[in-house]
């Protein structure tokens, strides 16, 4: 299976890189007269998140960073000025769990429930693993940042909805690879990467159905435990071996041990799947046992165990793909009260986290469009989450959890200029995103003026210049 997969991915990657290279070549003049690098948004309502709301003020963006924010700031003479009257400025939103800009043949799977009797039929397996030593579903050396495809159409779709940043994570297997924090713009893959090795996600889904280790939840947990044992053993043994290499048998090279060892050494955030309360309590125990700095992902039944999470001070990435009755469910099928309660209460988990003091961020978890992300976040607000807390979960708290809080997540001098300008409250259904800055680059969003022929670059370029001329003055 693996061989087949990589064979078909290679041309894709090559093609994507070629396109990316060409595009990059023609636009290599960034900041040299081709593209403005100084902006000022004036007279706008500013929600910095890190401080109180400024009812009317200015944000100055210079060379990719926020230079100044406040009511009394000097506008650099070379800045393009955007009149923000009637508009609101927010930090760019962060989606803390996607596969944006990654090849999509490994479509993201819903969080594993490991439910009894929900056993999958085995497809003809590719590789059969006969134990932990075969390292089933284990590719922790893969880093999303190294596999990015800047041409992924979804990047623009997310950005148009106000998302400037995403955690993007390889999928497939128990240790699928490391997630990267990327900004949602860039001509080349490298332009996008904010933090290459940001997270080490774990999936506890058995790898291959039947007849290949592990084929059970407990086997998957045992496997992860053995991998951490092995990684620590290698880290301990390597220096001893290096200084006494005539005394010992040569240490076997194991790519898994080295990649995970390096990740643990830099205290990388280990993401443990945990959606229902049983999984959450189990994950809290395992994170203790594994001695890793952990975050949970899923978190939807966290309303039942928020205090336990708070006590461990472990952050949660909350999936905004709220549980629904399966579309293909038997209409006459029996539904348990437990399922019904879960579906009813899941959106109240974020409010419970906020109350208990659990730090959390939101992620789209495979939702098909970015519109659904904010729509589903509204459900959490309807279920009691303060809008300010919801905003933090999309911005500063998310950045903090992902280890990029120093450089983004709020509107403050020195932060990366990831900024969203809207015509109203960001969680209001009627609000439209007007402009987005990503890394200080200006993107005007105008849903109304769709071109006649999508894909006609000349027309659109002209339209965009016209649009910019109309709204941006000096």
């Amino acid at each position: 299976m693996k061989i087949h997969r990589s064979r078909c991915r290679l041309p894709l990657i090559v093609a994507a890189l070629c396109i990316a290279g060409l595009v990059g070549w023609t636009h290599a003049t960034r900041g040299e007269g081709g593209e403005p690098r100084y902006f000022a948004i004036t007279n706008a309502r500013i929600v910095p998140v890190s401080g109180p709301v400024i009812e009317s003020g200015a944000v100055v963006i210079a060379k990719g960073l926020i230079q100044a924010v406040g009511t009394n700031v000097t506008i650099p003479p070379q800045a393009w000025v955007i009149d923000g009257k009637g508009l609101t400025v927010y930090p760019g939103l962060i989606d803390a769990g996607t596969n944006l800009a990654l090849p999509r043949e490994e479509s993201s799977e819903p969080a594993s429930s490991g439910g009894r009797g929900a056993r999958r039929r085995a497809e003809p397996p590719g590789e059969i693993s006969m134990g932990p030593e075969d390292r089933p579903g284990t590719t922790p050396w893969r880093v999303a940042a190294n596999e990015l495809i800047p041409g992924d159409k979804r990047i623009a779709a997310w950005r148009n909805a106000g998302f400037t940043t995403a955690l993007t994570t390889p999928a497939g297997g128990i240790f699928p690879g490391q997630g990267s924090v990327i900004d949602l713009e860039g001509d080349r893959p490298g332009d996008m990467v904010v933090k290459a090795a940001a997270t080490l996600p774990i999936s506890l889904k058995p790898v291959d159905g039947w007849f290949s280790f592990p084929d059970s939840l407990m086997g998957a947990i045992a496997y992860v435990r053995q991998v951490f044992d092995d990684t620590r053993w290698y880290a301990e043994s390597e220096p001893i071996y290096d200084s006494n290499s005539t005394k010992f048998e040569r240490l076997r090279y194991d790519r898994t041990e080295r990649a995970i060892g390096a990740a643990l050494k830099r205290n990388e955030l280990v993401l443990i799947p945990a959606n229902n309360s049983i999984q959450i309590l189990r994950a809290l125990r395992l994170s203790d046992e594994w001695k890793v700095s952990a975050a949970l992902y899923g978190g939807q039944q966290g309303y039942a165990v928020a205090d336990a999470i708070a006590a461990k001070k472990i952050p949660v990435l909350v999936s905004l793909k709220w549980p629904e009755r399966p579309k293909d469910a038997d209409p006459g099928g029996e539904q348990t009260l437990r399922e019904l309660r879960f579906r009813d209460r899941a959106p109240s988990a974020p409010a419970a986290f906020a109350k208990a003091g659990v730090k959390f961020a939101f992620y789209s978890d495979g939702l098909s469009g970015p519109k659904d992300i904010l729509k589903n976040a509204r459900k959490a607000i309807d279920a009691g989450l303060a809008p300010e807390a919801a905003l933090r979960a999309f911005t500063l708290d998310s950045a903090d959890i992902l280890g990029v809080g120093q450089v983004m997540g709020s509107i403050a001098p020195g932060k990366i200029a990831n900024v969203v300008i809207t015509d109203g409250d960001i969680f209001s259904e009627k609000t439209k995103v007007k402009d987005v800055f990503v890394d200080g680059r200006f993107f005007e969003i105008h849903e109304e003026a769709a071109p006649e022929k999508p894909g006609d670059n000349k027309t659109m370029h002209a339209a965009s210049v016209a649009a910019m001329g109309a709204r941006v003055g000096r």
Partner: protein
Amino acid sequence: MKRSIVFGLPFIVLFIAAGAFRPLRAQNSNATLIQNATILTITHGTIEHGSILIQDGKIAAVGTASEVKAPPDAAVIDATGQYVMPGIVDCHSHIAVDGSVNEGSVSVSSMARIPDVLNPEDPDIYRDLAGGVTTANILHGSANPIGGQTVVIKLRWGKPASKLPFQGALPGIKFALGENPKRTNFQPPPGVPPRYPATRLGVEGVIRQAFIEAREYKRQWDDYNARKAAGEQNLIPPRRDEKLEPLVEVLEGKRYVHAHCYRADEILMLIRVANEFGFKVRTFQHVLEGYKIAPEILASGAGASTFSDWWAYKMEAFDAIPYNAALMTERGVVVSINSDDAEEARHLNQEAAKSMKYGGLSPNDALKLVTINPAIQLGIDKRVGSIDVGKDADLAIFNRDPLSVYAVVQKTLIDGQVYFDRQRDIAQRASLEKEKQALLDKEKQASEEKKSDAEKAGKKPDKKKKPKSAAVAADAVAGGAR
């Protein structure tokens, strides 16, 4: 596994779905008095019109009404006309497990741990309680010669997984012999080679090989620890091996072996292998031909945990007889009757009663099969398995003699707390049904609103197309700005 719909199941399912059960607790003195009961102590006979005083979760006194003095604020359970027996101990259960009970991929899956995947919300816990069960030995499945690690739990319904394990009970490990580990009745999917072993010889080989490795692993660690203790520097430790560590614990007597088995020959084989490596098999599970070799089982020090009357469901079960429990008991083996099944677990009292018909056990000896005997087998007989002062107040209250087919559990207590109360269960059904209906209505309403929204949107087909082209446009705009 057997599974059938049993009376009352729909109600119980409904109730379980609720998960709202919260055990009662007596006030202040933490004392509860059960009075006017027929008390089946198991170890010292039957007490008519007896009382049991429970204090801080333990049995503080048991005897006739005049012998047992309760504090005035003790909660009182009146059991007039009812029977109290020790909570039933099920020595072989697969309930309360999240995910598969088998890590069936490998022949030795001892790295897999049932305690990692306890599911405290499994409705079968509550169903077991409704059958008077208070303690269960949760085993890995029988797909492998050496299976996963096992755990004894108390059925503390409503508590998190961390509160289920029976504190102080030794951990166990599942072994399996015969058709299941040699995969007689299982076909791998096309293209997958069958797993070794495929014969009973191979099963023995796998177990011996595993213990040879475990012995070597233990030697490496002993050697490393000795050298380290002697002050030697720059030592590379042995790798931790999650598969072999539990086997070392078996060799050190720190972990019980619960071996699934059917035939006499394979049981004798495992006794020989255990002797060779110097460990003991704690229980033979199912042990359907145990009656043929009861003296050998007795001499090995193992207990036998069997079915009441279940046979001929596969080749190796053809020589099973319902007299098995009684015959082994007569030879002095400590015998229990287990469920191996979530449904069977709800009437283990009846399963025990069958040994009176088949083999003529006395009523008390029959009850021992599901109380003190499995407690002995699990090494927890100082704590549970009989109604004696100082033991945990794990009790089942039946409306009739539990050996009668008409007996129905009224209340089940663990550590003195009521975890199942039939009257309360019945009383809650209506409100749970109401809650369920309200949630269903709410969902229905939401989905209808969604549908009507979609229909409204559907009237303007252009609008649906727009976002997509707008996204492309905005992307191009961004390109233009570069």
